[in-house]
């Protein structure tokens, strides 16, 4: 009797796991569509717009990787709840597009999955809430151990750090390694080269 029901049981449990698993990327994709509207309103009104009434986060920037054809709305805060909907901007770091280092984290298996194909010298476009756009260039790609490494602020001009879990196709979540892409604003670099030493 037990053995007769076993295939059915495995099938049901398997389906539910599959459904839960499939819902995660679906939600991540769906949220970005909803966020697009909130972003348009943010641009228009120039203030924080919550994408849905009970949201505890709001869009702070849009990041586009032209070569990879990827674009996301970045949300405020980098908690697990926020990252389910979009890449999150770490509290306390500079805002994307402002002076200082802006840290943006994303899930390696949803939004930031495309970072795997990122290369040095790639262009990153950051659109701020006021609609202005800033061009960044990827300077360095690194893998760090989050238990010992701290993301350092290069301290020069505007920089952007995109952080995601590494390796990209590990089976379980919660690993200690992070992939970090650091980019700096194009204009700042030009200005630096021009300025006298």
């Amino acid at each position, binding site marked *: 009797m037990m053995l007769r029901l076993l295939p059915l049981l495995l099938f049901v449990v398997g389906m539910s796991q599959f459904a839960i698993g499939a819902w995660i990327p679906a939600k991540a994709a769906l949220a970005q569509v909803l966020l697009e509207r909130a972003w348009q309103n943010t641009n228009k009104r120039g203030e924080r717009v919550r994408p849905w009434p009970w949201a505890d986060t709001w869009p702070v920037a849009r990041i586009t990787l032209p070569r990879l054809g990827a674009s996301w709305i970045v949300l405020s805060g980098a908690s697990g709840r926020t990252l389910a909907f979009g890449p999150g901007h770490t509290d306390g770091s500079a805002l994307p597009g402002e002076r200082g280092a802006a840290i943006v984290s994303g899930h390696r298996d949803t939004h930031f999955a495309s970072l795997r194909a990122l290369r040095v010298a790639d262009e990153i476009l950051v659109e701020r809430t006021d609609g202005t756009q800033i061009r960044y260039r990827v300077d360095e790609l690194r893998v760090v*151990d989050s*238990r010992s490494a*701290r993301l350092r602020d290069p301290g020069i001009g505007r920089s952007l750090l995109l952080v995601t879990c590494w*390796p990209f196709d590990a089976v379980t979540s919660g690993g200690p*390694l992070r992939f970090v892409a650091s980019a700096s604003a194009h204009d700042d670099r030009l200005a630096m080269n021009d300025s006298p030493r």
Partner: protein
Amino acid sequence: MNHRTALIAMAAALCVACFESSQKPRDAADPSMRLASALPVLEAAAEGALTSETKQRLREQLSEWKRSAKSGTLLLREHGAGELVAGPTLATKVEIDISGPLARSRVSQRFHNPGDTWAEGIYVFPLPDDAAVDHMRIRTRTRVLEGQIQEKEEARKTYERAKSEGRHASLVAQERPNVFTTHIANIGPGSEITVEIEYQQSIRLDGGESSLRFPMVVGPRYVPGEPLSEGVGAPGGSGRGWARDTDRVPDASRVTPPVRRPRFGPINPVEITVDLAPGFEVDEITSPYHDIVIDEAGGVTRVRLAEGTVPADRDFVLRWTAAPGSEPDAALFGETLGDDHYALVMVVPPNEPNGLAEPPPREVVFVIDTSGSMAGASLDQAKSALVLALERLRPDDRFNVIEFNSETTVLFPVALHADTRNLRRAIDYVRGLESQGGTRILPAIRVALAHQHASRSFLRQVVFLTDGSVANEQELFEAIRRDLGESRLFTVGIGSAPNSHFMRKAAQFGRGSFSHIGKPEEVSEKMERLFRKLESVVLRDITIEIPGAEILEQYPARISDLYLGEPIVVALKLDDAFDRLTVAGRTGNTPWRIELDRDDVKERRGVHVQWARSKIAALMDARLGVHDERTLDELREETVDVALAHHLVSAYTSLVAVDVTPERRNYEALRSHALATNLPAGWDFGAVFGMAQTATNAGLRIAIGLLLIVSGCFIRMTREIE
């Protein structure tokens, strides 16, 4: 073994392994160990009866995984070898002398420079939040140099001048009432210099128990706000800490000393000796967080650490109770300096049950901190304390639970009655809480104090469970003061190194009281004491009268309401010596008064220090809510005056000691080092400084799901063939 059983066993093993490793990633000390335990199971699975494609995929995943584990350790080493130049090391000796309700302490910080270049040491350390620091001296092999009190900026210049001229110099400055910085310049190669700091504080009496807390480490604090742009290009900003100055915490880099990674082992050993002469017969002496040895000699009780020295990674607390019948009920101290007469009054009010009818039903809002700094032991203590508190509520009470880290989450939209169902929900919710993210307290305070009009017939109490690991205390006090309304706020400091300044002042502005929980065994006892305070009637309208002398200045000027077991402590400045003193107040509707006369007055040194420290605290409090620029300047001037007159370190005055003869010749280089501190005991480095979790378990779930479905079909098929 046939295929079927093998498959089922394998699927089960795989699920268990994956579940375990994804459940609590921070539990294991070393994640590579976690990885190692999961690998054999998966390898076995890969060799089992799987479709060749799945097998292949699993194998690829495994090799990928192994590679990553390896590069992880390589990376680790690379980042671990950061400390190339050996900076000065520190050993601290603390001698505390308790006499009656006051304690004088001497903290000797011995800096040793093991390197071959001249060194400057910068050490950020905590002292008790009511410490009145009044002396500092440098002790070198040959000389003793006494420190002078100067205005902060002037003291810094004095120090910088001596430093650049190669002379021995030391500067002790206050960053927060409980955070100080020692600068020590020109420690010669291979040599040693000791900086001695002396302070006075009062003993805390609560519920018949006296206690003294000596903090040893400034825990990493959450710094909100946008980085100040001036900091760009100049690493560190105004100080040498790991945080950058921000618009909301402009001195963040001065209160966030570098933190040593726990796996490199503890540093900063501390030796503690306490001489205890409490003025009454002692029943029991305990030290909840350290093992102690107690010696009796000549009427003085000497307490030492059993281990000799301990790493500076958690608060040292000493508690003692009076033998039955010898409990102190009042103490009165006087001191005359020139024409000025100072008095310190301590009175334990009569502890009578009030004859009132049932107190009104209460609305209790519990606020629990679930930020990264609470991860591990602290959160467990906070959770069990909160569950106890919930179970204690009566059915006609109302309650709500607010959780905060980087975000604030409210359990119920409005406070609900404490019936079985609601309590069940709340307790389940609390038990399931996990910690991550920043200590963003401000929104939690706002939410906890909002919408009070709906609860006018209730006695509204807010109980705040946190370690107070924030650098924006001032901003929070302002919010509490502004939004408090008719609520009362009680703080419970959690963990091994709580921010006691935050606990005390938040409770003061919240017109409640504060307590501490430092280990799981203390939860029920400490919470019981808090419940009694929450449930009893306060002591109000406390006044002090002295016939025959005029009170020139009294601190605190208005004595706040007292909760059960708390004593009245007031510092006075009088125009004349006095004979008699009356303390009066009301418990509920019952008035009471206590009279003390000349015979009760004991002359003693240090009373003026206590008075001056209380005055400075009152002046700093007055800055909150005052927005007139001129008034702020006046307050500052008054603070400087009293601090200079009484030789005290304050927010605007520092102690500085300099030598006259240069030691370092000007062609020799001086290297500056910010001394590292330990991570507070029980804290999780990764949870505080770690990065966001940037992976979901979507892939894993899909894989497990597919595996189960496939094995289900497989079993079915093999059975049909049979």
